[in-house]
């Protein structure tokens, strides 16, 4: 099954008086349960592509299908619902709402979904355990390290059982130990729950784990390599 | 433009919306103050004119005791001559002598106790607006004819009109029986019921003969065209009177209620203004405190570069001063234009008609725009704004460069 199908996506931005090509005739298919890296230098269009998949941004032309929905045709509220129920997001930084504790951040999504209180709480605690932060539930984001914050963000991304997680430079602000822990968490979630991961990154530590690596430059896909084996079976290679 | 000034100016517009909202609060408050203070001054002028213009005048020469106890026998001797002397010496033509007595006025059908004034017909119209308010007939002409003008309500109550006769009975200066019959020649309609119910005027010489006054009068009324002239004129007349038993009273002594009513109104208005100014000051305090706190890192860098906290404090005060000046300028312009427009067209007071009749005010209110009403309120707002910036500016002294640079 195809999780995401993008065909002929185009998007331009203006910055100052320059017209920048965000996406230039991009077409890709991503299979369900796959673990995909989008890489490339900054400005290459990987974040734009990721945002388009998540319905955060609309392409100027082209079609995007996520599951059975045409993302490019949905309205704002439907997009919000889609993000709420079917897609998990992990961003580079400022992933958590600063006034809510770790557990409340995870509960936040469920709360807007209307999950009953008791259920919500148990689930959030279970998620925190899963990401290894069981004893940090009452800490505010400012009391957590960068790596811990990102793991809370992951827990929040998967708590409502999405089939797809989109991560944008999730390791950018992390030291290498935290980065490795985070990426291994992604891998285990991909293998155990079959969640599709699309990760935009220029971190080679992350790329090393990916069976499929799509490289972009100036809004175009310049290479799309499949490596055999499942995520995590690949060993980190020295870059 | 100095570097500091340029820096302050640019800092303000880093958060244009916030700056405009703060300036907006000041502009709103300032325009309101300009308008309210101008209207207040305008209404006081109307109250003073309205209350004094009908009869009282701005100054009166009386026997020392007359104002406290208005007895028939406390008189100004040879009043007509004194009035003439004052007209000549002061150069002010609006000076007239009056006599005053209580009497029972009777028509064929009715009797009422009223106050009768003896006036000099040729001078009265210079000190009182009543002669100009004749509705039927004419005002008094000859100074010794047996004629009377009365208010329209009194005429209705007595059931008489122009041409009818009124008999009045009272007592003269020497407690003798005083009686006279006068023909109604005119009816005054001032539009103020209390005035129209009470007013009755007869010629002064006739008054003097009926009430056994000889050449005496009870008061000499002086009207001026500018309130500022009252005090010097009072002094001049007083010195001219010398050590006689006579005294000069100004309107504040003649109508103490008026000045106090104005004071009471001023006090309550200023209480309101104070609250508005405090609220605006809070607005400035909030903005400047935010602006200082969010620049902690920047200020840390500047301190590390050797800028002294005092200089940073001055920067914050300078920013506030620019903001407050904008508020002052725009507020004065907006308030001034609004007020000038209303001073031109006037504000209808019909809604408060009954309340204002107490002060003989009718018609439209014309706000008085002056230096004081234009800049008084806004300047205090300016000072309030500057005071509010002191706390944020002082906070800078507690700044620790290293900690500040680490702050987000």
């Amino acid at each position: 099954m195809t999780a995401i199908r993008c065909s002929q996506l185009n998007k331009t931005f203006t910055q100052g008086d320059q017209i920048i090509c965000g996406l230039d005739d991009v077409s890709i298919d991503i299979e369900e349960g796959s673990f995909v890296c989008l890489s490339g230098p900054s400005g290459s269009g990987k974040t734009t592509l990721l945002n388009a998949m998540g319905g955060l941004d609309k392409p100027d032309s082209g079609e995007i299908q996520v599951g059975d929905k045409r993302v490019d045709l949905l309205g704002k509220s439907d997009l919000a619902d889609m993000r709420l129920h079917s897609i998990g997001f992990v961003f580079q930084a400022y992933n958590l709402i600063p006034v809510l504790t770790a557990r409340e951040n995870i509960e936040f999504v469920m709360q807007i979904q209307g999950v009953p209180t008791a259920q919500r709480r148990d689930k959030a605690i279970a998620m925190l355990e899963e990401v290894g932060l069981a004893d940090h539930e009452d800490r505010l984001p400012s009391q957590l390290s960068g790596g811990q914050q990102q793991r809370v963000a992951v827990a929040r991304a998967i708590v409502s059982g999405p089939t797809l997680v989109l991560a944008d430079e999730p390791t950018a602000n992390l030291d290498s130990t935290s980065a490795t822990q985070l990426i291994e968490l992604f891998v285990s979630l991909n293998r155990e729950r079959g969640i599709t991961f699309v990760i935009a990154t220029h971190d080679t530590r992350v790329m090393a784990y990916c069976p499929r690596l799509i490289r972009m430059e100036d809004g175009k896909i310049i290479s799309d390599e499949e490596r055999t084996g499942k995520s995590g079976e690949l060993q980190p290679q020295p870059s | 433009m100095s570097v500091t000034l340029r820096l302050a100016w640019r800092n303000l517009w880093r958060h244009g919306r916030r700056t405009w909202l703060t300036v907006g609060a000041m502009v709103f408050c300032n325009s309101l103050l300009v308008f309210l203070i101008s209207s207040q001054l305008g209404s006081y002028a109307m109250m003073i004119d309205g209350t004094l213009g009908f009869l009282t005048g701005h100054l009166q020469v009386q026997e020392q005791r007359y104002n406290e106890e208005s007895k028939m026998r406390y008189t100004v001797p040879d009043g007509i001559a004194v009035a003439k002397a004052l007209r000549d010496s002061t150069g002010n033509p609006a000076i007239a002598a009056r006599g005053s007595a209580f009497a029972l006025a009777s028509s064929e059908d009715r009797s009422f106790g009223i106050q009768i004034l003896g006036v000099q017909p040729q001078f009265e119209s210079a000190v009182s607006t009543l002669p100009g308010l004749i509705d039927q007939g004419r005002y008094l002409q000859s100074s010794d004819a047996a004629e009377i003008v009365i208010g329209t309500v009194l005429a209705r109550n007595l059931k008489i009109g122009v041409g009818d006769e009124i008999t009045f009975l009272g007592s003269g200066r020497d407690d003798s029986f005083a009686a006279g019959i006068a023909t109604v020649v005119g009816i005054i309609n001032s539009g103020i019921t209390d005035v129209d119910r009470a007013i009755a005027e007869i010629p002064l010489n006739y008054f003097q003969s009926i009430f056994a006054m000889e050449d005496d009068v009870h008061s000499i009324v002086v009207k001026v065209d500018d309130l500022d002239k009252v005090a010097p004129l009072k002094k001049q007349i007083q010195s001219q009177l010398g050590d006689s038993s006579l005294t000069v009273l100004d309107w504040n002594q003649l109508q103490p209620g008026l000045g106090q009513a104005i004071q009471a109104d001023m006090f309550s208005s200023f209480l309101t203004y104070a609250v508005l100014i405090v609220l605006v000051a809070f607005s400035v305090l909030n903005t400047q405190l935010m602006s200082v706190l969010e620049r902690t890192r920047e200020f840390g860098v500047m301190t590390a570069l050797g800028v002294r906290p005092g200089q940073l404090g001055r920067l914050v005060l300078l920013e506030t001063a620019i903001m407050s000046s904008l508020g002052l300028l725009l507020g004065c312009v907006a308030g001034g234009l609004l007020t000038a427009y209303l001073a031109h067209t006037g504000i209808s007071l019909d809604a408060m008609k009954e309340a204002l009749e107490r002060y003989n005010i009718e018609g439209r209110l014309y706000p008085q725009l002056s230096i004081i009403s234009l800049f008084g309120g806004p300047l205090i707002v300016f000072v309030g704004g500057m005071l509010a910036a002191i706390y944020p500016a002082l906070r800078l002294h507690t700044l620790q460069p290293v900690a500040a640079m680490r702050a987000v």
Partner: protein
Amino acid sequence: MADHQPAAGILFTLAWRNLWRNHRRTLIMLIAIVIGVWAMILFSSLMAGMVDEMVRGGLRTLPGEVQIHHPDYRDDPSIANSIDAPQGALLERLNNPPVTGWAARIKVPAMISSERANRGIQLLGVDPAQEVSLGFDPTNIVEGRFLEGPDDKGLVIGRKLAERLETRLGKRVVIMSQDPDNNVADRGIRVVGIYQARLQATEELNVYGGLETLQKMLNVDNQVSEIAITGDDFRQVASWWPQIQQATGPELETVPWMELDGYLESMMKMQTSFNVIITVVIFLTLSFGLVNTLVMAVFERVREIGLMMALGMRPGWIMYQVLLESIILLGLGLLLGNLLAVATILPLEDGIDISALAKGLEMAGMGSTLYPSLRLSDMVLSTVVVLVLGLLASLLPAWRASRYNPIQALART
């Protein structure tokens, strides 16, 4: 797609915690709102106290909240325009609630003369018991006594009038008026009491004599000029005076105080508009700060707002969150402001001495003590104005917050 209920709980948590994130700013704004609300209620109470005092004083002077006259009496207050003392249905009506007191009195203009001076006055022929029920306070008699019955042969005059006439207790004065046939009716009467009144003008104007004594002097049998009626609360008069009118019948004129004294009514109206204007003006001054605070609060949270949107929070809820923040701030301010107002006004309800301005206040028809009157309606007015206008003022920042594009918001540094 699941249909979700707005999760009010989380919105409230977010709003509350966000509010205290920048506690200095919130506290300053809160203090400003408290001062504003306090001032709104304080000014309204002072105004209410002032107007109440004026109206009560005015009603004492009238007196009564409703008066019955001959249809021509108000225009021509002569003894010729007299009416019968109440009887039958009207008497029945007057002796039952909501009427708490009434007096049938003669009230005609007259001339009073002492040996030294004479004055125009208002001569009142009264039954003292009825006058007391109407509100005349016998302790206001400063010398001598009040009348003892409708047949009392003495006269009670005001302190100021006594001064003007240069007369005193026990002296005889001459009263001159006219009878229904326009003949001069006069009589020498001894002053048996001197009263003081709130206003000097009253002391100079009103002279009390026994009803029957004056009826005899003026040559009328059991006739009166007016019937003055009072109830519990002058604000309620509109609800009951038509009953009196009905009992009186169409041939006589029944008039409530609102018509009798236009000044008082216009003061009441002025009070209402004053309260609304002062409340709105104070609020508007506050509103700039309020909007500023919200704009700042939204501005520094743009990233979070982007994040919440990216996570699937609908734009509307972002708006509710900001509005909720505003409501909490306003609500707290209202609560504290109201409490502060109650705490400052209640101790003042015993009266503030403002006798330094007595003459000016007398001119406006007031006594020299101001009794602030804390009223629920003023508190409700300020609460409604602050909440409704506050929400309106908050709409713009809230709406702007909901219009952010999540990507741009997230990209903001």
